[in-house]
């Protein structure tokens, strides 16, 4: 007790799969901040909602750690995707939609989201800050795909851009993003 323990990613994953509480404590202390920041970017800075999602995310990490496959990517990547999916699911949930004052009719959702996105003040945190550096046409697509969780097909529909173009632009945007992350 009281002795700080550090783990390599390999050790951490093994300990978590063996249901080691100490490892889970370490996982939380080490990764919660990074995941919380991403969740906040997706739920547009709603701290209360982000806290609830973060809680759900860590419970899910603990429950689903068995399914984590190291050959498919780093632990953080896996957790990041859980956090992103949980955030997007929350935004799309009926209860969240109902809680929004200006509720849109379902057939107008895409267009309104697209409009919001182009008009929205990009938060000056995390990946969104990096997105600012991209061309507007690229930024919107990444915003819709990554932060709103729309599929390429959905984006193609709502933006009236051919699917192939959506894919190419998103990939180009991501490659630029990669450069900015250096």
């Amino acid at each position: 007790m009281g002795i700080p323990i550090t783990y390599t990613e390999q050790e951490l994953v093994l300990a978590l799969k063996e249901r080691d509480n100490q490892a889970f404590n370490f996982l939380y202390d080490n990764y919660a901040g990074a995941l919380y920041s991403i969740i906040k970017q997706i739920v547009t800075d709603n701290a209360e909602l982000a806290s609830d999602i973060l809680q759900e995310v860590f419970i899910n990490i603990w429950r689903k750690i068995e399914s984590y496959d190291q050959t498919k990517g780093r632990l953080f990547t896996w957790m990041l995707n859980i956090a992103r999916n949980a955030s997007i699911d929350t935004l799309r949930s009926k209860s969240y939609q109902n809680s929004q004052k200006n509720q849109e009719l379902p057939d107008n959702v895409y267009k309104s989201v697209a409009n919001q996105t182009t008009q929205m003040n990009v938060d000056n945190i995390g990946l969104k800050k990096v997105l600012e550096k991209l061309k507007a046409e690229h930024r919107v697509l990444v915003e819709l795909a990554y932060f709103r969780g729309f599929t390429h097909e959905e984006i193609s529909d709502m933006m009236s851009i051919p699917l192939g173009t959506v894919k190419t632009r998103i990939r180009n945007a991501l490659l630029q993003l990669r450069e900015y992350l250096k």
Partner: protein
Amino acid sequence: MNVKDYISSGIIESYVMGLANESERTEFEQLCTQYPELVAARRDFEEKLENHAFENAEIPPSMVKVKVLEAIGNPGSQRITSSNSPKIINMENSRTSASGSGNWRFLAAASVILLIGLAWFSYQSHNSQETALNELKSTNTALRQKLTSTDSILNKIVEEQKIVKDPNTTVVNMVGTQTAPKSSANIYWDSTSTNVFLVVKNMPKLPSDKQYQLWALIDNKPKDLGVFDATDDKVILKMKNTQKAQAFAITIEQKGGSTSPTLDKMQSLGKTLQTN
């Protein structure tokens, strides 16, 4: 396939960020098993994304951790929640089960377990007793061997003392020759009983094919009195008897001894008071 082109297509970023579709993911994962450079590129991007996320980390409210630990039933959490509160057994339920047939099954199962436990315990204890007994036996054997060898040494010392103290015994002090100035031994010679005893005091160690040989010089003719080793140190050795001897000599001979001494290898010589 051109891996470089594939890498620069943006598939890696798309995959890592969760934007690739099902078929793209399957293809990417399959190719990763074939192209290590693809895995390296993926790792590289993952690390960049991770580092960026860590640089932009924001401390969440502390209550989140408390709630998470409660939810997963972590013993580190402070409060007891319904998920890990002790199970309450209803009195009525417990009584019902005690009087039911389940109770007999339980007792039967428990007695079998107890029996197995006892059998195991007795087997273990028997095993450990046997081990202890074997240890005692081997210790005993070792002690016996030690006692036997100590006894024989003691007997030899007692015998040596008897001979030394016997008034009929003549002590001949063998001194080193020029060849071996440090060599020394004592001869205890009882001219009445004709017994000859030798005590090695300091004789250099010999090669394994050589031995020392004791001679009695009678009327300038050598008589073989037997062979000995330098290792027969400080123990009295009974040599062959002789009634007469004007001198004793020790030479180095081939193992087993010679019929006549190699006098140039004479190690020590001791004269008696006996005359022709």
